[in-house]
């Protein structure tokens, strides 16, 4: 099945994190995700884009964050890409207690891991970070087959 795809290049600004959430949620709504699952997707997207803006680019609004979303059958793929400072130790960053900001408490990756089915982080210092997440609806609703008599 051909994918339904959306690509978005956004300025690395906090006010665009909400925009990214809305775009992904609108595409996810075309699949059979429940309202609770769409909420989880929004949180995961929010975390990934926030990390790009705050950590990847360290608040440089002239930089660009890329969002690539694809819906293939029931599978939603979300990629968030920055060309910022990168993560030196990805395994360390994924630990729950890790964060350079004491009020964020390293919860971002925890939400991405728990609210999506899979999470991949590709990162290299001074090259940037690519976060790829997948999710399928837990309960698949069969397509409508017309009126039942």
């Amino acid at each position, binding site marked *: 099945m051909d994918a339904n795809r959306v690509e978005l290049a956004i300025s690395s600004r906090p006010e665009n*994190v909400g925009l990214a959430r809305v775009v992904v949620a609108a595409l996810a709504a075309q699949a059979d995700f429940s309202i609770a699952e769409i909420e989880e997707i929004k949180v995961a997207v929010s975390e990934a884009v926030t990390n790009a803006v705050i950590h990847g680019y360290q608040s440089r609004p002239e930089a660009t964050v890329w969002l690539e979303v694809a819906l293939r059958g029931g599978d939603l793929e979300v990629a968030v890409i920055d060309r910022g400072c990168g993560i030196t130790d990805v395994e360390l960053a994924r630990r729950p207690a890790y964060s350079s900001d004491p009020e964020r408490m390293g919860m971002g990756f925890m939400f991405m891991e728990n609210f999506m089915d899979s999470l991949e982080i590709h990162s290299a210092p001074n090259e940037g970070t690519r976060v790829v997440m997948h999710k399928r609806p837990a309960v698949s609703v069969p397509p409508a087959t017309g009126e039942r008599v």
Partner: protein
Amino acid sequence: MELAISGKNLVVRVHGVLDVQTAGDFRRRIVEALSESGARNLYLNLSGLTFVDSSGLGVILGRFRQVTESGGTMGLVAVPEQLMRTVAMGGLPKLMPLMATEQQIQAG
């Protein structure tokens, strides 16, 4: 966001989104209100909250630390059902009471 002070209690009614864009302003206004009112206890009424992520939960956890370190208590009121999983995963229910209505807040 509306603030109501009653004795030693500061009740904050939160509206809209708590994310990286709004969390800083939210923190400043609560810190200011706590210091200006002299309230010891903080209750967040989240019935009007439409979205929260780790940036928002981080500010709530930061205020929990601030309030409890100065001997006060903190609670959450009317957490919307669709945000419950996020709030729970952030560990908030282990730290502070969750109340259905503001009437359940103990007089301060």
